[in-house]
């Protein structure tokens, strides 16, 4: 699946910090600092053109809630990108996790936390299954997760049809509505309260970011995943249990997908089979814009958050400027293409500079 390109074009070359942001193209090329600058500039531009962009209750709150959910989706994809794999079933794993959560609320009558835990376990189990099939057969992760996507799509819809009349679990356990609409303003320590613009749902994302960030930056397991991603043979020869790391990465991906499914269900107010159907594109957009290598071995956790923020800010801004929903897709696709080309252009430039 890797390209026929000369090998060094695939490696992630990070220019020293001093060179960062010297020109716009480089700023757009997945460098986190550059990405942050672009996001801030866009927020200022959109805010100036449409002051309503800063409306904390109607714009910022839902925007952050979407960013929160999609960042977790991006992290789910990042988990398997780290080992050089893909998870085409992120959306359907999310749907499966949400199905189990919704089932536990409606049919089993469990409380909010227990249902969430069951949903996460279900997501992780499906992810582990994908990992087991991949390591057991040696088949490309793409095909396995694609097949799984088909199967889950059918299964999830069938279960909803079996247990509900309207194809949705609508029972809300105590606390779910609060989770949906409460912001940090409802969370006070003494007299100090948070901002009403920041949804409490974002706390899940912060936990996920911290956990995944710790895993890949500090924990031995995470480093071993990255090594498996950059060179599986070398990793195997240096005594890393690569199969277990592959299964682990897919399990983590399933777990995070399940979390994202739960978050979307909380946002939407009901558990349906449609959850996660729009996750695939953002799941790649976030990590890729953020600087995660598709070939494995390099991840950028905070970059994923920024990549997702960028796409969501652009979507929100453009739709407030009156750009129709249909055109948003065109712009998103073009942004991804420009970002991809920019990485290549930078590589060509750095190579030329080095050779001269």
């Amino acid at each position, binding site marked *: *699946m*890797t*390209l*026929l*390109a000369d090998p060094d*074009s*695939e490696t992630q070359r990070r220019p020293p910090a001093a060179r960062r942001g010297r020109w716009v193209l480089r700023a757009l090329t997945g460098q986190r600092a550059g990405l942050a600058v672009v996001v801030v500039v866009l927020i200022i531009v959109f805010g100036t053109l449409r002051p309503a962009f800063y409306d904390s209750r109607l714009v910022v709150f839902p925007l952050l809630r979407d960013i929160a959910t999609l960042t977790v989706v991006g992290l789910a994809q990042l988990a398997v990108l780290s080992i050089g794999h*893909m998870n085409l079933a992120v959306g359907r794993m999310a749907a499966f996790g949400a199905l189990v959560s919704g089932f536990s609320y409606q049919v089993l009558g469990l409380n909010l936390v227990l249902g969430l835990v069951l949903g996460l376990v279900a997501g992780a189990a499906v992810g582990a299954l994908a990992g087991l*099939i991949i390591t*057991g*057969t*040696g*088949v*490309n992760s*793409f*095909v*396995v997760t*694609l*097949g*799984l*996507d*088909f*199967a*889950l*799509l*059918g*299964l*999830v*819809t*069938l279960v909803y*049809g079996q247990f509900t009349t309207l194809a949705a679990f609508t029972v809300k356990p105590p606390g779910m509505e609060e989770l949906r609409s409460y912001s940090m303003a409802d969370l006070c320590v003494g007299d100090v309260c948070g901002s009403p613009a920041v949804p409490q749902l974002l706390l899940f994302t912060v936990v996920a970011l911290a956990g995944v960030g710790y895993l890949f930056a500090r924990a031995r397991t995470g480093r071993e995943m990255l090594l498996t991603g950059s060179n599986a043979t070398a990793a195997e020869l240096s005594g890393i249990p690569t199969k277990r790391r592959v299964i682990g990465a897919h399990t983590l991906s399933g777990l995070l997908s399940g979390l994202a499914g739960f978050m979307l269900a909380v946002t939407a107010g009901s558990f349906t089979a449609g959850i996660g159907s729009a996750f695939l*594109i953002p799941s*790649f957009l976030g990590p*890729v814009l953020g600087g995660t290598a*598709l*070939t494995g071995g390099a991840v950028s956790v905070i970059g994923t958050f920024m990549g997702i923020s960028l796409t969501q800010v652009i979507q929100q801004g453009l739709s407030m400027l009156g750009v*129709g*929903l*249909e*055109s*948003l*897709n*065109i*712009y*998103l*696709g*073009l942004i*991804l*293409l420009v970002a*991809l*080309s920019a*990485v*290549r252009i930078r*590589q060509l430039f750095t190579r030329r500079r080095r050779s001269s």
Partner: protein
Amino acid sequence: MTEPATDTVTDAETRQRRITPARLRSTEATLLAVVVIGFAALSVTSGGDLLRGPAIQTVLTYVAVPVLIGLAQMVVLAVGQMNLSVGALGGFTAVLMGSMMADAGWPAVLAVLAGIALATAFGAVNGLLVVFTRINGFVVTLATMTVLIGLQYRVVGTRTIADYSPGLKAVGAASVAYIPVILMVALLVAAAVAVFVRRTVPGRWLLASGGNPLAARLSGISNDRILVLAHTLSGLIIGIAAAVTVASAPGVNSSIGGDWLLPSFAAPIIGGVALTGGSVAVLGTVLAAFVVRLVDVARAQFSLDPSWVSLVVGVVVLGTVVLTQRRRRRG
């Protein structure tokens, strides 16, 4: 390369063993058996209804597009690439053809040809982007897919274009001895692809480049050009699939192509195409499309939920990869 009749370029010494011609045939024989037995079983359970001419025609009509999109995916899989924009490009081209005829008043022939040319050009753009950015074709086509979905919606919006050329629709509904003309078109394309890959020099290059890019480069083949060629060919076949859709569907809207992506992979994978590149299985892909169609017929016959089709096809895809791998290891 010495055996022009085989579908694969084998270099068993340097890489993991590919599907050899004998095994390929066995995949196809299995699929053929499944199609025949499945059809016979469904005929029996339907009390013979399925054997009537019009019923056969209905079954066959809905195979044409799956065959074509399977082939469109297969030619990029042959060079170790994948094309996620199959559905989006097909949908965009279909609504554009419809709009050219209904809104701009173009004659059907011109609209169809222009649409196919445009789809081919988009395929070439996919290939050029992959070559230029040196990024995994997966992400590049993911990006173009997003753009094309947007373009499709921009052309057609929420309406359904149905008021176009009655002549074209007549072609879409026409049949010879209950075999739909559009299925013949699809099978002709399949035959052309088979001849291209087996008998022509660029076709052999395609497999050589997909099988072992380094060896191909050393023997003077431009891998970049082959990549662009494969994506262009994919675009061309998608253009034809779009034309078939416009001809056979009652109308075109923004949902056309939305459900093409998964079947486009299912047909070649079940048909025995290796995802690592270097092999094609035209007959296998065609037969696999029939198998998937039979699942759908069975679902309709027993009036089950449409979700069963996804479930069964997904399990079959997973089962196929696991079994193929087992068989290959034993061999």
